């Protein structure tokens, strides 16, 4: 998952353990286990003002693929299933939303049977029917949703829909009965991750009359607590209460507090901070500029919320072209980078922590180890990273025979990423390379570094978890299936494909269905094993910083969608 531009890069390969472990008994949990407190009408009302540098493109929930708007969709759109409103790990639970309960699985896992809740209306007053459900699934293909081919290609009839989106029919794949409100989803094969896939915004239910193309800036009627009143990507996005909304599941779609949510665009990050300081806005979307961090941490400490993320900043190295087709060169980079220095560039030790392991701390399968720190080797790792080893890095570069070679570092053009690139350039030059920094627009950098045509040697990028499963990191980022040469969608940026490693990951995924503990232990071993090959250099694990105005209360943080905007209170 990317923080801004791409929310879920891939669910393919995400182990079933996440979904299967989370769905059981998740429908009726109390606030004490991390869910939301009961709605308090005394705090309802007012307007929440959000500020951002830029809008995030189409408002169509089947098209948009950004964290910026997925954060809003949680309060406005609903699928048959949804992620739970709750703090911390509770937010990873999949709960029934428009469906009355979690699906009944039959036919060896290939058939899912739901019952649609009755009495729910769209924000235009029309009742939600099973016909809308069927049409919504067909619309995924008709509008060529970014995940149509990866998340929903297992539905019977999806192959034909992918081939001819305009005439998509899922008569066999999504069978509905208007009399009983039953919905049967038929799959071509069991899919352990289907529960999670049905809970993300691309699977929300829209009116059957929704256009069979990207709705763009025209709001599509919602089912949730809020609806979109207006959207101008150059100016603002306004959400108001859905007049037809009545809370049906406090876990899936609780009532919100503000009467209106206004998202203002075109505000620079530093102006965003000033606006929140002056109570002219409630929340800053963009990362806080580095020279304002001390100010807000000192003068506005009570308004700052820092939450851990299971994520990493890392440097994929292209294992298929020089100089990083040499394992010693890749190991040299791992030894050379001063992870504490990179943490400083990111904003300091309160906002990030140095790591070497591929699986982040507090993540299934994570093991505290670092094979690339002073005094350690991949075979005899230390417990944690302590300092770089430049001398060993220089020796490895010399031994690799790659000294003096040109290395291009591709980074995103925002301030922090550029600074990371300049630092990395300095490090690479110091160990014997001739490095150049290539900052390119953040809108394209993530796809640019994936495409082998661009011959990217090393880059700086980030990965944020989709689900708490080790495969979401190791299998997605380093699996052979994730490497597609000459494609913008080749998330295995290192181009690392090790058949033996792949087989071991498959074994770990299978083991996860029956023995998660043993599987996580195996994932931990695989983490250490793959880092001996050093296809990437992991730098640090970041934290999420939210800065809210002094009059804003009831902050809650979801690990899935970040802050719950609709739960903020101004009264």
């Amino acid at each position: 998952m990317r923080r801004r531009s791409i929310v879920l890069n891939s669910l393919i390969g995400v182990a079933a353990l996440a979904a299967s472990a989370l769905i059981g008994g998740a429908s009726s949990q109390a606030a004490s286990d991390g869910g939301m407190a009961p709605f308090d009408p005394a705090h309802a009302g007012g307007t929440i003002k959000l500020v951002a540098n830029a809008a995030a493109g189409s408002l169509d929930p089947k098209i948009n693929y950004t964290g910026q708007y997925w954060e809003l969709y949680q309060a406005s759109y609903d699928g048959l299933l949804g992620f739970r409103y709750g703090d911390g790990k509770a937010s990873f639970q999949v709960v029934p939303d428009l469906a009355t309960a979690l699906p009944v699985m039959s036919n060896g896992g290939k058939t899912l049977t739901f019952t649609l809740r009755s009495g729910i209306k769209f924000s235009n007053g029309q009742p939600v029917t099973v016909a809308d459900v069927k049409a919504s699934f067909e619309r995924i293909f008709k509008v060529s949703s970014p995940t149509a081919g990866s998340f929903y290609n297992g539905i019977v009839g999806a192959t034909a829909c992918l081939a001819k989106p305009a005439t998509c029919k899922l008569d066999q794949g999504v069978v509905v009965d208007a009399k009983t409100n039953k919905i049967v989803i038929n799959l071509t094969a069991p899919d352990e991750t289907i529960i999670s896939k049905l809970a993300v915004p691309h699977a929300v239910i829209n009116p059957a009359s929704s256009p069979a193309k990207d709705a763009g800036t025209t709001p599509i009627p919602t089912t949730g607590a809020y609806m979109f009143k207006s959207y101008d990507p150059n100016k603002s996005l306004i959400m108001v209460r859905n007049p037809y909304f009545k809370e049906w599941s406090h876990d899936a779609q609780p009532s919100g507090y503000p009467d209106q949510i206004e998202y203002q665009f075109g505000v620079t990050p530093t102006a965003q901070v000033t606006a929140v300081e002056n109570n002219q806005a409630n929340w800053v979307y963009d990362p806080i500029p580095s020279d304002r961090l001390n100010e807000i941490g000192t003068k506005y400490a009570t308004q700052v919320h820092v939450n851990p993320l299971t994520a990493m900043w890392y440097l994929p190295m292209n294992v298929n072209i020089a100089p990083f087709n040499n394992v010693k060169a890749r190991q040299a980079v791992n030894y050379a980078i001063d992870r504490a220095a990179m943490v400083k560039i990111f904003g300091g030790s309160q906002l990030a922590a140095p790591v070497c392991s591929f699986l982040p701390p507090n993540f299934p399968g994570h093991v505290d180890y670092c094979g690339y720190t002073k005094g350690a080797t991949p075979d005899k790792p230390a417990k944690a990273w302590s300092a770089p080893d430049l001398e060993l890095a220089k020796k490895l570069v010399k031994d690799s025979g790659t000294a003096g070679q040109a290395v291009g570092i591709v980074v995103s053009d925002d301030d922090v990423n550029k600074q990371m690139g300049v630092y990395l350039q300095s490090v690479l030059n110091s160990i014997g390379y001739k490095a150049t920094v290539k900052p390119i627009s953040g809108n394209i950098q993530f796809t640019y570094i994936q495409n082998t045509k661009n011959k990217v040697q090393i880059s700086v990028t980030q990965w944020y978890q989709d689900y708490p499963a080790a495969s979401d990191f190791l299998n997605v980022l380093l699996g052979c299936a994730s490497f597609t040469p000459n494609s913008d969608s080749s998330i295995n940026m290192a181009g690392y494909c090790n058949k033996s490693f792949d087989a071991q990951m498959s074994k770990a995924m299978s083991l996860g269905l029956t023995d998660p503990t043993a599987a996580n232990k195996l994932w931990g071993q695989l983490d250490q094993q793959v880092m001996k090959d050093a296809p990437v250099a992991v730098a640090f694990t970041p934290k999420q910083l939210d800065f809210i105005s002094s009059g804003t209360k009831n902050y809650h943080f979801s690990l899935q969608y970040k802050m719950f905007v609709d739960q903020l209170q101004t009264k």
Partner: protein
Amino acid sequence: MSLKENSEAIFSESPGKIALRTLRKDKRSVISLSILGFIIAISLLAPVYAHFIAHTNPFNSSLDATTHVGGKVVPVLEASTTGLGLGVTPIGPTWNPTGYFLGADGQGRDVMARLLYGGRNTLLIGASAGIICIVLALLIGVIAGYRKGWIDSILSRLLDVIWAFPVYLLAISLSVVLLTSGLKLGFIHVGPGSFALPILIIGIVYIPYVARPIRAQVLSLREREFVRAAVGIGAKDSTIIFREILPNIIPSVLVFVPIIIALCMLTESALSFLSIGVQPPQASWGTIINDGLALLYTRPWVGIAPGLFIVLTAASLNLYGDAVRDALDPKTRSRGDA
């Protein structure tokens, strides 16, 4: 000087000597040249300052570096210890020339040392681009104006094409394309990080601004009696150009030189500020302002200092250009001396 003395001086000295004498007496010229000389001198001494006075390498990141302030060892990048402890702030100006005189940037590098190195690069690129621009513009302007006909038409349309683009838009477009992959023209291969690229790009975009007035002047001179006389006695084209045309347009060209160099320097700073000019770890005043942008609230000097140097240099060049124009213009000189 009386009118009589002035007239004697005019008849006894060459125009060049008169112009130089006038420039020496012109306060604008003296002040602007002094400022320029100072800036050029300290910029050329950048390695001396960095290695022997500040003892720093301004091209390497120094995120863990320390320095001495008031007898104490302090980190160059200091993590906040107040409140929530968020953020890391570079050291501010120590006003001590032996280290971090103007403070550090986000990479822990000495801003003063980078400012001096940046001056070298900005002035080098500005002056080189300016000279390339003047030479090519002179060539195009003289050929187009003297030959007229289809040659003039082709060259003039070429200038029109360049002229049609807003200068910064053209410079940015060329920079974005060329800085990504470098320049490959037959056997000529210029790498993406080479200074030759911004020099060439900036030099080219200003050619029409100089070539068109030169062409117009040559067109006018070509019809003057002394040129017709030269043609009448059978003088070669090259003789006419070098003996009759060029001496009459050189004063105008000389006036252009400082002004175009100032423009080129400003353009270089703008491109570097946009990260499409001088590439890291090299510095120019534009790149340092860019670095300072992220530190505007906590360390404003990182951005202000190169901005001041740009203002001083551009103002001095323009002031000197005015003085040169006045010195080379007999009418202005006569009015001024009378």
